[in-house]
């Protein structure tokens, strides 16, 4: 545990003599993973960390919220949930509202924003960012069309204008069902995008990050829709209860995924998640405020015979939304910190590192 002396203190890892080039044992003979973790080049980072900051973190959150809202709206429409019309309507509008800032955030983050169209030169199936560009474009179309036809259905678009006539033949239910595919993609691809890098903490949990972001997107969306509906007149308790059920479900799944990712990372890689300000945010913000608090409120509301009060729904929703943002923040920032740690890099790509996989023996 944490016994990686600096190179200055122990320049040689093996006890062999210095002369005759035998300072280090040959690679396959006796060097263990532990030895690799104790050797580095003056503690310098091996890889370059991404520059991503609040712009990208906010995009991760809003993109997830948008995709999640679309999915919930579509499912509510398809299964005909109690008050489903309201959930669908709020979900469609929320989806568009959350999506609108996304391209702006992404373009602002580019080193050369004026060149953002270069993203549309190529389609690369092995580049999650290229796929994401196209996924976002497709989802933008579905999301806008669905929101417009929802607005037409709500009578927000005048009866006799051209837009209304254009929207009339749009098969809303079919569009909603088909649009779920890019919507789900938008919620989860960001996790795969992080995983397909050399950043130790992200790539280590490559099977978990996509599902984690997808689940968190649905929970943020359920919370946001519940929050809006709870503030609107005439929302039935049953409607709120169905969203709280969904919220509780996603929160349980998220806790499971987070615990799995923590166990999978091992102590060295998980260090940024456990120490300092980031560790506190992870424990108190993501787990406490973002998951356990809303889960407690929801399970209270979902007891047989009990109905969720509006105040409880609002409180749980706000907590879940804060947690959803913090999850992205902590994941991105902890990944950046792990990229700066050569011992973490060597733990996944060093002497003792196995091939890819969740079961490889990391340096702990």
């Amino acid at each position, binding site marked *: 545990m944490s016994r990686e002396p600096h190179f200055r203190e*122990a*320049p*040689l*890892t093996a*006890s062999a003599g*210095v*002369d005759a080039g*035998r*300072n280090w044992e*040959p690679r396959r003979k006796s*060097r263990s993973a532990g030895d*690799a973790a104790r*050797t580095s*080049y003056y503690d*310098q980072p*091996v890889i*370059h*960390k991404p*520059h991503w900051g609040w712009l990208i973190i906010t995009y991760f959150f809003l993109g997830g919220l948008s995709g999640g809202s679309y999915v*919930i709206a579509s*499912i509510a429409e398809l*299964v*005909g*949930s109690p008050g489903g019309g309201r959930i669908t309507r709020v979900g469609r509008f929320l989806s568009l509202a959350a999506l609108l800032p996304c391209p702006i955030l992404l373009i602002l983050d*580019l*080193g050369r*924003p004026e*060149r953002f169209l*270069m*993203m549309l*030169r190529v389609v*690369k199936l092995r*580049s*999650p960012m*290229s796929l994401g560009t196209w996924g976002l474009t497709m989802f933008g179309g579905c999301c806008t069309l669905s929101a417009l036809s929802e607005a037409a259905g709500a009578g927000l678009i005048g009866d006799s204008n051209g837009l209304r006539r254009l929207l009339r033949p749009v098969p809303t239910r079919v569009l909603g069902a088909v649009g779920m595919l890019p919507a*789900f993609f938008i919620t*989860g691809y960001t996790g*795969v995008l992080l*995983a*397909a*890098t*050399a950043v130790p903490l992200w*790539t280590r949990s*490559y*099977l978990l990050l*996509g*599902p984690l972001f*997808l689940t968190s997107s*649905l929970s943020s969306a359920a919370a946001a829709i519940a929050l809006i509906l709870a503030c609107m007149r005439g929302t039935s308790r049953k409607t709120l209860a169905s969203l709280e059920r*969904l919220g509780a*479900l996603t929160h349980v*799944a998220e806790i499971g995924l987070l615990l799995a990712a923590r166990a999978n990372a091992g102590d060295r890689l998980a260090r940024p998640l456990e120490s300092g300000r980031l560790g506190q945010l992870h424990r108190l913000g993501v787990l406490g405020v973002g998951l356990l608090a809303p889960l407690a409120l929801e399970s209270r509301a979902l007891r047989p015979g009990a109905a969720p009060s509006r105040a409880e729904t609002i409180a749980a929703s706000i907590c879940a939304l804060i947690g959803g943002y913090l999850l992205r923040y902590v994941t991105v920032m902890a990944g950046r910190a792990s990229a700066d740690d050569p011992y973490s890099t*060597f733990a*996944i*790509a*060093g*002497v003792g*590192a196995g*091939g*890819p996989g969740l079961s490889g023996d990391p340096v702990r």
Partner: protein
Amino acid sequence: MSIQQAMGFLTDTTLCIGCKACEVACKQWNQLPMDNLGMTGFSYDNTGDLSATTWRHVAFVERIADAEGRRPTRLQPFQSNWLMLSDVCKHCEHAACLEACPTGAIVRTEFGTVIIQQDICNGCGYCLPACPFGVPQLSDIDHRAHKCTLCYDRLVDGLEPACAKSCPTDSIQFGPLDELRARAKVRVDELQERGVETAQIYGDEHLGGTGGIGGLNAFFILTAPPEVYNLPSHPELPQRKVLPGFLSTAGMALALGVAAAFALRGRP
């Protein structure tokens, strides 16, 4: 454009004397500005790292004593008790930066090398964390990603790269890849014969070019574990995680979609 032979670098660390002529020649030819006049505080390495404006970086590892504090009594047969390595972009056979690039700015040239087309790059920065060796870096000056081009502009005119040209000991050797690989094997055998048992090639499928990378066009002869020079032993092509990652995400989408349908349908 005619298809040429795959070209590359063999950097033989046992010949490096740490003069940094490669760093200077690279900066001069490629007109790269200086980026650090300070001291790092460790060894003679004041460059620190490969960056947008430093495409060769000489690492210095001083070996004063072993873990038990014993001082050396004899010199290595090839150099003093310094390890020096001129680090550079590896021009991987399967390059993570190239696969990650969403604009297609990063391409493979007719020499089998990897370059960033500066008129395409939009500075998204995804190649930075993708590279398992930490090579590309965003520039503060023009906000695009930069790295070694293996002097593409010199190669097309039949010249060798500036760093190899300037290296006074031929620690940096440039040539056709198969020729360099054969030469490296001979050199490693020779070193081992002379008693350097730890001499090994970094950049083949066993070490350095692992995990789907398939080998490095710029490879090295090392006499210590790669970690000592800040190189990962078993780097992996990150894009191998894309398909499994999307499959697990799709599985979760299916499961959550069904669960959400039940949750939203209301109690029967």
